[in-house]
């Protein structure tokens, strides 16, 4: 399944967050959306997952127009959003947070939900050690793993990840990104990754999209973006 964004414009009250953006997220890719703080990256993901409505434009998931669907329906269509800020339910335990990701398909396929939870524990063994602990006792990195894990229990075809590196130590970021790359290879899942940490994101991505003040300025091969010094200086600041 390919996600196609066509002429998408999103307003935040009086402020235009995204103006007329068009790009594709090909099946099986890791696509990194990069750009400075305030470039509209989070707003873009929130609109794809149905938390926010676009002012105009279309979002197509293969043939299905998802821009007017409810978040719950978008999850059922296979698109799962892990928002920024290590979003877990802090009042629930690790295992309850993971179970939450599978509640919507429990009646359809309980066995697979159980399997998906076990796979998350294999992927992030530190979560397995802490499964009975409340999520607010976890470290920042563990919380991010849990947030991603909750998303994975839904068995997404497209995973939307918002700033998974935010506020984490470089070593932890490295570990999470390597796990994501490995996960993508083994499952064939598509990942749309929004990041301020352009270098780490582009290293595991196949495709890069650079946002500047709400506009798509570049959509290209990730390696080509990394090797283009002038472009990096202009938009990515390194």
């Amino acid at each position, binding site marked *: 399944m390919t996600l196609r964004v066509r002429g998408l414009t999103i307003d935040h009250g009086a402020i235009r967050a995204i103006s007329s953006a068009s790009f594709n997220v090909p099946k099986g890719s890791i696509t990194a959306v990069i750009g400075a703080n305030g470039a509209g990256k989070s707003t873009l993901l929130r609109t794809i997952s149905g938390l926010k409505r676009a002012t105009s434009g279309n979002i197509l998931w293969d043939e299905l127009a998802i821009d007017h669907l409810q978040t719950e329906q978008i*999850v059922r269509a296979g698109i799962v959003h*892990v928002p920024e800020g290590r979003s877990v339910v802090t009042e629930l335990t690790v295992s309850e947070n993971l179970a*939450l990701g599978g509640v919507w398909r429990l009646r359809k396929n309980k066995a697979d939900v159980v399997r998906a939870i076990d796979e998350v524990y294999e992927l992030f063994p530190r979560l397995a050690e802490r499964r009975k602990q409340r999520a607010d006792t976890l470290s920042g990195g563990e919380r991010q793993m849990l947030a991603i894990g909750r998303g994975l229990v839904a068995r997404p075809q497209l995973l939307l990840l918002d700033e998974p590196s935010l506020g984490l130590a470089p070593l932890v970021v490295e570990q999470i990104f390597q796990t994501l790359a490995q996960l993508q290879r083994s499952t064939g899942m598509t990942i749309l990754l929004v990041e301020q940490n352009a270098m780490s994101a582009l290293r595991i991505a196949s495709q890069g999209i650079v946002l500047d003040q709400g506009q798509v300025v570049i959509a290209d091969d990730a390696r080509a973006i990394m090797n283009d010094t002038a472009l990096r200086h202009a938009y990515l600041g390194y």
Partner: protein
Amino acid sequence: MNLLNTLIAGVSIGAIYSLIAFALILVWRSTRVVNFAQAGQAAFSTYVGLTIEKAVGNYWLALIGAILAGVIVGAFVEVVVVRFIVKRATSAATATVAPVIAMLGLLGIFQGVMGLIWGGEYQPYPTAFAREGMSIAGNQIPFSQFDLFVLLTVVVAMSISAVIFQRTSLGLSMRAAAFAPEVTRLSGIRVSRIRTLGWAFAGGAGGLAGVLVAPTTFIAPNSFDLLLVFGFTAAVIGGLDSLIGGVLGGLALGIGLSVVTGYLGGSYTFMTAFVLLIVILLVRPQGILGARGARRA
């Protein structure tokens, strides 16, 4: 009057405060609305019970009918009124004030409708159990078979709720939606449906509380207004976010007020509840079992 007797006398009314606190907390957690209309909802449900009782003469059928009426009325209030008020509140100030005013207005509407249907006068509500204090080793204690029934019913209701909340996926969804609605939606759960269920659940608890308290207070359109104040005080004692806290708060309040009534006289009871409410809000606004420190986003 010895202390032990005074303490015992407060247990069953405390259990009823617990039920009301439970209903208020459930609604507060799911929608951030303090449901002042709960008193009206509970009275309405109790009138439905009384009507069934008069028609078929079966206490148990009336009890079940009142609980079901509470469930339906609770869901109705959420779907028809609360959902739109919460959605339309655009600023933080209106989001705080609008539901409060709306719920007070709704309480008035409930009381008006009840007056039209059932009249304004106090009516007795029957019970299936003796109301005289039981005797233990020749001594009569201020605890009747009816009090025992009330206590056991509340314990059973709370145990069932605890199992639902802690052991089922519905309970998991309800807890998650209460604390992190956005993450819950992103997990594919229909949070609006979960909210309606929360109000329905709370309405049922209110209906049960109404039937349990009505033999003592009698039933009139406004006869549960005081119960609401006590239930709210219990909820605040427990910290508005903790169901267990609210239940314990109800028991503590029932027993505490019984001591006040026993030693100082009945005219101090109502005032004490308010003084307690204000002192707790001043000294420990997060309640006895409420979250320590500020909640994280």
